[in-house]
């Protein structure tokens, strides 16, 4: 299940919805992304998430499909918010369900790493000093790339 929305989400309700009616599921793994306070608590800060509406849904679907090719998954939930968010607000939810914990935990980590470098979202940060676009971090590319290396290792 993929949703791109302005509204907040309820992690517990989403977990219950993902596992409801499927007693073959042995475990759920979750990642919840939060807005971090970039000012160190010294002033008001917030961020606005812009996205490319037509492409977001498609990219998230491709990332989910790739996770399902790599792991045995009973279900996946991806929720990404857009619009104005404040420190402490939830931004993104990744839930994976599988008969086995390893598949749930690994695919959850894979999904957030890949989503961060592929889904077309951009963060505009507001601080007391003005607003600026958050720059992509090379550590995010490295985190996503490690899943490619893992695959290469498996194949060689």
């Amino acid at each position, binding site marked *: 299940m993929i949703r791109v929305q302005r509204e907040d989400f309820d992690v517990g309700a989403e977990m219950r919805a993902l596992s409801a009616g499927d007693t073959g599921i042995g475990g759920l793994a979750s990642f919840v992304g939060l807005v971090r306070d970039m000012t160190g608590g010294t002033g008001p800060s917030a961020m606005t998430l812009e996205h*490319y509406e*037509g492409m977001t849904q498609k990219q998230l679907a491709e990332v989910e499909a790739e996770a399902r090719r790599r792991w045995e998954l009973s279900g996946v939930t991806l929720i*990404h918010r857009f619009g104005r968010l404040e420190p402490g607000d939830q931004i993104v939810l990744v839930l994976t369900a599988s008969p086995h914990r390893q598949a749930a935990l690994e695919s959850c980590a894979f999904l*957030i790493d890949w*989503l*961060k470098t592929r889904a*077309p*979202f*951009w963060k505009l940060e507001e601080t007391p000093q003005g607003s600026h676009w958050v720059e*992509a971090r090379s550590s995010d590319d490295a985190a996503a790339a490690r899943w490619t290396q893992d695959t290469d290792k498996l194949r060689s």
Partner: protein
Amino acid sequence: MKLLYFAWLRQKIGVESEQVTLPDAVTDVAGLVTWLKSRGDNYANALLNDKVIKVAVNQAYARPNTPLKDSDEVALFPPVTGG
């Protein structure tokens, strides 16, 4: 062709979308970026560091040699920072 711009690229160019007719010589993504740079200082400035610019053709990531046609929707944007 429909062009879309996002984040600081949109701010630097000054519009979020526009309809353009490509010159015959422009047949791929690399050609499009080169042509856009010639359309004014705002484009040249926004596309100055074109190595970092991402391009999507019909909502899928494209490469410099991805071919283009008039009915395509092409988006240009900085590296993504979601999640």
